């Protein structure tokens, strides 16, 4: 799984961090998403898909290609 985030679309809601804190964080100075793991391990895949599905900014893209 490969994850990308679009900072321009991010509205700083923080749902991704609440759902998958090992994969997502937010910048100190403006709350915009920071991707911690762009190829998260399999045990994180369900959480990452959930985060992408609920992101209010539609800022998370998940692809299954390595």
């Amino acid at each position, binding site marked *: 799984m490969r994850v990308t985030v679009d900072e321009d679309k991010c509205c*700083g809601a923080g749902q991704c961090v609440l759902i998958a804190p090992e994969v997502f964080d937010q910048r100190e100075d403006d709350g915009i998403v920071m991707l911690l793991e762009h190829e998260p391990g399999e045990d994180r895949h369900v959480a990452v898909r959930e985060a992408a*599905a609920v992101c209010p900014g539609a800022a998370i893209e998940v692809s299954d290609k390595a």
Partner: protein
Amino acid sequence: MSLDEQVLSYPIPSDAALEPPAEWAELRNKCPVAHVKLPSGDQATLLTRYEDVKRVLADPRFTRQLNAPDAARLSAEGDGVFNSEMAQIIPDGGEEHQHWRRLVGKWFTAKRMAALRPSMEEIAEQLIDDMVKCGAPGDLKAGLGFPLPVYVICDMLGVPAADRERFSYWSDALLNLTRYSRAEMEAAQGEFFQYMADHVAARRAEAGDDVLSELIAAGGPEEGGLTDIQILVTGMALLVAGHETTANMIGKMVSMLLADRSRWERLLADPSLIRTAVEETLRLDANSGFGLPRYLRDEIEVGGTVLPRGTTVVCSMAAANRDESVFEGAEEMDLRRSPNAHLAFGVGAHSCLGQALARTELQVVLEVLLRKLPSLELAVPVEELERVEGLAVGGLRTVPVRW
């Protein structure tokens, strides 16, 4: 007359405090773009399907400012939070809006909210102890739902919690649709403004560890910060938004989970369901208030209908959250539902700034209640719960409980 021949009165009343009006399903299925009449007598267009509501809310061109000459008025007495000089001071579009949002948003990150958890737990435990001391039955709204978010937002703004009664009245008046007169609303707004002006001045003289002090420290617009009046109005907006909504949701959430006690019992048996259970109550909240208005500066096609420029749209997130084409078993509560892309906090650039705070408060309240009052139950039949009427934000008047 069928739904598509008459002009529906909006908001649509519901017989039951926790249940949706029957009209929502009919509207979604047969009249997804509906003409409605607002309390002011003006007409607007109501959207109830998930895809349509999401589309309009996510479109960065449209905002809730209804100050164009052909925009609808929501209430006869002035629109409070949706249209006032106050509301126009905070930039609502483009780069300015994004800048404001990022500046304020850094206080509402998930990490900051997580850091607040211990103090939220402490506050919740204290409030519950006090409620228990007074003996059953208690009112969960007055005892816990209302005070907790007020304490939290007062802390964040560096404002004394002792002033919370005054805040409650002011924010009620600003969320007015039909309950207060124009004179009452204007007086409340003036008093509130003066209070915040004094508070911001005090923080400028002596900084504290709070959002307003940080906004002041960011400097003026030339230094990438905000003007004094923008800081002041931001403070007002955070206070209004940070308490009434969450206070009401706490009452509604617990009511929904106790209305069918098997839900409460499942949570007692498996507290790991708390996060998804909170989301599901947000989705199924059938009393979330007016919804969100949008003024269309450009025409847009929605559900096969072209909405002309100048239309005032009302988006019913609560109706959209029960859209069967998006949520399987949409009318059923599934405590495990995941993902749960409900629209309770809106979507896109204008989605609720405080949603991480709201989520954390709701999760903490539920966790502490399950732990301290496992035998909690409603002290009245569900049919006796009453809705608050006449405000933009929905809630229950009281939540009588025993334990």
